[in-house]
């Protein structure tokens, strides 16, 4: 989407997101801040998944594992008294990159449903690892008693500061994903999705391109994990269960697969809808489930496609 309409949409969305803390303060809705911080953080994860799923056609049912790796790095270091973001965050991202690289080497030799299952397998292995880590709470989870410190520059315990940090990260990630998708690199990845043989026949080592994309997505999702751990002050194996990975896929699909803003819109829609519907009725999940079923049958590209359809 490169029309002026999409620029207006971007600016509108950004303005709305920036306005959240003000609205929350003016109207006294503390919970709004909590909700939207969560939306922004999960949107980062959705953007990262969209990069490999939307552009690269690699459907991973284990993407939440990076949220877990990022989160647990922060949590475990915090447990041992290491709170500096300058130590925690780079280490978390490095571990994500390593894990993505090694598992990617193996997973990317498969395609389609086998890729789905092997990414699930690796995620489940880490899930059970975190469950088995008795010292760090195992199934009970681990409370993080102090958020990452940024050497006195920023106070991440302040809700508004933290929100803007997350928002800044989201904007960076969206721009990065967008530029990458339009670059030569991105073209190869997208081409590999529609016709891998032809790309290879053109002399392009698609395997390595896809591996790089996979690693970038993993690192970006790890950032989401780092932020989520700080946001909830709590880590648990639940963060990387396969149902979380499923949630991410839904957010991406609902928003619009392979579009720049799709993941952000999808995450917002999914989480806001969830909150709103649960306020209306205890049994909201019936309606929500039906909605997803209908969407899958009649899907024509998600919300983003709906919006771009306004052009015509």
């Amino acid at each position: 989407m490169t029309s002026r309409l999409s620029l207006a949409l971007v600016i509108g969305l950004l303005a709305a997101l920036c306005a959240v803390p003000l609205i929350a303060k003016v109207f006294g809705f503390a919970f709004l801040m909590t909700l939207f911080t969560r939306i922004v953080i999960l949107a980062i994860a959705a953007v990262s998944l969209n990069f490999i799923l939307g552009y690269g056609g690699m459907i991973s049912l284990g993407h939440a594992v990076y949220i877990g790796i990022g989160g647990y790095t922060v949590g475990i270091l915090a447990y041992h008294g290491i709170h500096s973001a300058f130590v925690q965050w780079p280490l978390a991202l490095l571990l994500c990159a390593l894990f993505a690289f090694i598992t990617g080497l193996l997973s990317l030799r498969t395609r389609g449903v086998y890729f789905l299952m092997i990414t699930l397998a690796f995620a489940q292995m880490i899930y059970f690892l975190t469950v088995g880590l008795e010292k760090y709470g195992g199934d009970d989870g681990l409370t993080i008693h102090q958020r990452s410190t940024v050497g006195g520059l920023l106070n991440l315990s302040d809700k508004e500061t933290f929100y803007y940090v997350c928002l800044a990260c989201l904007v960076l990630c969206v721009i990065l994903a967008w530029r990458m998708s339009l670059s030569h690199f991105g073209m190869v990845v997208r081409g590999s999705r529609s016709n891998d043989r032809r790309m290879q026949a053109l002399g392009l080592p698609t395997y390595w391109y896809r591996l790089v994309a996979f690693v970038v997505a993993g690192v970006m999702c790890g950032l989401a994990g780092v932020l989520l751990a700080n946001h909830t002050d709590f880590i648990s194996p639940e963060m990387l269960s396969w149902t979380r990975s499923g949630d991410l896929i839904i957010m991406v699909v609902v928003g619009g697969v392979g579009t720049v803003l799709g993941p952000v819109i999808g995450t917002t829609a999914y989480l806001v809808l969830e909150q709103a519907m649960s306020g209306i009725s205890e049994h909201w999940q019936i309606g929500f489930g039906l909605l997803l079923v209908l969407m899958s049958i009649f899907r024509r590209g998600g919300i983003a496609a709906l919006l771009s359809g306004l052009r015509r």
Partner: protein
Amino acid sequence: MEDRRKYLKHTAAVIGTRAAAVLLAAAAVFSTSAMAQQKVRIGFVNTFSGPNASIGIDERDGFEIALDHLGRKMGGLEVEMFYEDDQQKPEVGKQGTEKLIQSQKVNFLTGYNWSNVLLASLKPAVDSQTFLISGNAGPSQIAGELCSPYFFSASWQNDQTPMALGEVLNRKAVKSLYIVSPNYAAGKDMAEGVKRTFKGQVVGEEYTRWPGQLDFSAELSKVRAAKPEAVFVFYPGAAGAQFFQQYNQAGLKGQIPLYSVYTTDATTLGQIKELALGTLSTQSWVQDLDNPVSKRFVSDFRKKHKRYPSYYSAQHYDAAMLINSAVVAVKGDLSKKDAMRDAMRKADFPNTRGTFKFNSNHFPVQNFYLQEVVKDTEGNLTMKTVETVFTGHKDLFSGKCSMTW
């Protein structure tokens, strides 16, 4: 060309305003009503779904009987209750706690049946300086290094009840014991508690997956192979019923006596039925305790709900009375948190235990009794006090707590 540009600008404006409207609408959905300090707002986090919903319901019923006795007012202010379901999951309980603090702006938090849920929910409560009265869970960490001026326990510390049971085993001259317990915060505390006082030999320890594992065939095979003199278990809720049935199915019932804590009680006897008759366990409150508050509680509960209350509900009755004592002491001015804390520390409130004092870490100092499953005169299953095991028992972790008062 001009038309197109106008059209695009128009659409952008529309979208922009629509987005803002959606945001405001969303905000409105999450809004809370304007409140002046005219009510006492109490948040209640417990398990209301899944196989252990009966415990959450029992605890809520106990709290509600207390509210009935108080005329649903504390210190002249009306009481407003907000119930959140934790689905027995720490993350969900934590989120529920946060919602109660931020959206409903509660003055007190209570409930918390499970130790892992409580541990995850403690930080938001303490950070927001909201009083949290635990009606059941008593993890050792909160009795020790995580103790807080905003936390009070109306129940016990996890290790205490099994310590009493270990003492019982000594009195019965049991020499070898096999422990089976769920693998989470409370399960580990319970096992540790028994080991603290038991003088014989622990010939086996098995920890099972919690809450998922309800199939104990592997563990029961090991128990049979080890041939201990007695078996100790801690399986609250539905798992307890399952364990008893499988113990019986495995043929162990007649062979090896089964001792337990929190496994045979008013919430599970309905499912375990006659299999539980004669089972011994320890607890800080029994249905037949001889004090006026307890007697009134039991009879009113039975009248209203047509079933016996469990210690779960008795503890929550006490929690409600504790909160009331604080509100009454400040005459309804809930901003006087220090005064409320002082009032609660005095532990001067009608309670089902009879005698009640607080340790320095805000955990109760109380008696523990040996109880047995019997049939009452009408043929219902209930518990009967056999003897007092500990008098005025203090938990072991107050040393790690840095609070002094």
